[in-house]
């Protein structure tokens, strides 16, 4: 046990004295999350919008005036035909189009209600949401004033429609992907590099000639990275909650346990990579090409798996990250419990056991 503590201490010296390691370990996750933080804004200012007003009556003019007067919006153009809306968005000049229904005032007076369509460009779903909320607020305010001195309740009914990204794939959806990549990077790449580094320097030989058993050497090298990965996972989740205001719907405990499982999967992969590479450079290349690339391309992080060609969809199943991303999304965004993700968890567990067994076997062979 004492030998182990010494070993782990030494590993931490290596990590904390190497700027590159420190950067990958702590700089990267924070930078990534903050980048996403900038992409998410909950405030809007002078957003360009267009208006389609076929009614041209007093009520619609009044509403338009109010919108124009607010500091949130600036009316960039007036659209004359419904058919033109699509092209307005295509040009990318405006973020939203407000479409008043025909005979707005008349409907309001006759039926006590009138409809306005709020069409937003949801490529940036957060902004789209905010725009909708702000327009709604203005409408409600106006409606209240309208109803102040009359006994009938006029109702202005907003109808929301999104273009480009109707299922509202929000920036939040990227958090699970980013978290997966970072954990993979830290666990697999850093471990494989740190093990091959000892091989390259020749210190691995010295360790293997010592009374330490090979598996003790490996565990000693891996434990610090388990700690650091867990800390990283915590940092990412905290940043998501407090900086991105991302609500974590599910159980934090479950999230933690699943993360530890994935960290162990990645570490096993890292050990496996270190057994097949002789230099740090090779280890890094294999980690990047063999792990990061498939994770980015095939895990559903950027390209939805459902829209991939069939062979790639099948291939994506052997990527542990795919399953972890599904698990993360389920816990973070949908808030479901283990009863909905036990299958994915089992698959990940199976993969982990397989990789550990394989790397133990490979490691033995390397020593011959």
């Amino acid at each position: 046990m004492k030998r182990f503590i010494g070993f782990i201490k030494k590993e931490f010296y290596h990590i904390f004295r190497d700027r590159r390691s420190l950067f990958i370990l702590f700089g990267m996750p924070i930078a990534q999350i903050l980048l996403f933080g900038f992409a998410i804004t909950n405030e809007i200012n002078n957003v360009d919008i267009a208006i389609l007003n076929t009614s041209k009556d007093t009520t619609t003019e009044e509403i338009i005036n109010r919108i124009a007067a607010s500091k949130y919006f600036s009316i960039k153009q007036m659209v004359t035909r419904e058919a033109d809306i699509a092209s307005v968005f295509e040009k990318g000049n405006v973020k939203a189009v407000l479409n008043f229904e025909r005979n707005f005032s008349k409907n309001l007076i006759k039926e006590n209600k009138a409809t306005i369509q709020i069409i937003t460009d949801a490529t940036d779903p957060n902004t789209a949401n905010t725009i909708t909320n702000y327009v709604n607020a203005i409408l409600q305010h106006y409606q209240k004033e309208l109803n102040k001195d009359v006994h009938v309740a006029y109702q202005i009914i907003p109808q929301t429609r999104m273009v480009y990204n109707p299922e509202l794939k929000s920036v939040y959806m990227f958090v699970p992907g980013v978290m997966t990549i970072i954990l993979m990077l830290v666990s697999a790449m850093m471990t494989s590099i740190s093990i091959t580094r000892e091989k390259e320097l020749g210190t691995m030989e010295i360790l293997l000639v010592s009374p330490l058993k090979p598996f003790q050497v490996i565990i000693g090298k891996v434990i610090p990275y388990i700690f650091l990965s867990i800390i990283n996972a915590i940092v990412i989740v905290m940043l998501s909650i407090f900086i991105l205001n991302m609500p974590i719907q599910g159980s934090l405990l479950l999230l933690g346990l699943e993360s530890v499982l994935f960290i162990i999967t990645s570490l096993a992969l890292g050990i496996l990579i270190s057994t097949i590479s002789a230099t740090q450079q090779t280890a890094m290349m294999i980690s990047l090409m063999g792990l990061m690339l498939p994770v980015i391309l095939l895990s559903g992080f950027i390209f939805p798996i459902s829209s991939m060609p069939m062979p790639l969809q099948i291939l994506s199943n052997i990527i542990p990250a795919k399953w972890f991303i599904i698990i993360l999304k389920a816990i973070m965004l949908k808030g479901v419990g283990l009863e909905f993700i036990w299958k994915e968890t089992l698959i990940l567990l199976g993969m982990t056991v397989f990789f550990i067994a394989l790397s133990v076997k490979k490691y033995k062979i390397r020593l011959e």
Partner: protein
Amino acid sequence: MSHDEVIKVEGLTKMFGDFAAVNAISFEVKKGEIFGFLGANGAGKTTAMKMLIGISHPSSGRATVAGFDVYTQAEDIKKNIGYMSQKFALYDDLTVKENINFFGGIYGLTRKRIKEKSEALIQELGLENVANQLVGALPLGWKQKLSFSVSLFHDPKIVFLDEPTGGVDPITRRQFWEMIYKAAHQGTTIFVTTHYMDEAEYCDRVSIMVNGKIEALDTPKKLKEQFQAESMNDVFLKLARG
């Protein structure tokens, strides 16, 4: 006396594919001896040593080290030996003290014992002023001496040194050999490879390896007589010419 032999090797062979890097070598090393394992670059010295210290499996032949079999008792061998590899192998990003503590620790020495021994060692090597500096900043000669001391730190019965003086200046080499003598005096068996033939004169007995085979084995004095040579270098040249 047979129990005097701490290393016994018989027909030890290592094949890399069809190529015999070590070709059926046999020799014995006695307790407390300085055994020089000579040969040109590529002769197979490192390969032979790795089989003896339990990190490479022999293709055939037999060998025991400190009474333990290299095939089946590698773990016991490891407890009884020290090893200094051909590559400088301390951690450059750890200080002198941290390196000593770490290597002392993995050999299971108690913290108290490590502290006592490391203070004595730092003093002996004259490293007091740099004890808290990173090893990477030290000159090569100091590193080599430190590396040697670390391989002896846990008082092994036998120490294996693979080209310990490679690349260092003649004065440091001389000092290095003094350290080797001192360790031998204290009863440690020294198994040392080198391709500097002049260093052979410092050994009790030497073997000369050529292309994986041991071509000569005796005391330097007898070898010079046998080959009617002035120096070990001449012996080697005569051997190489065949």
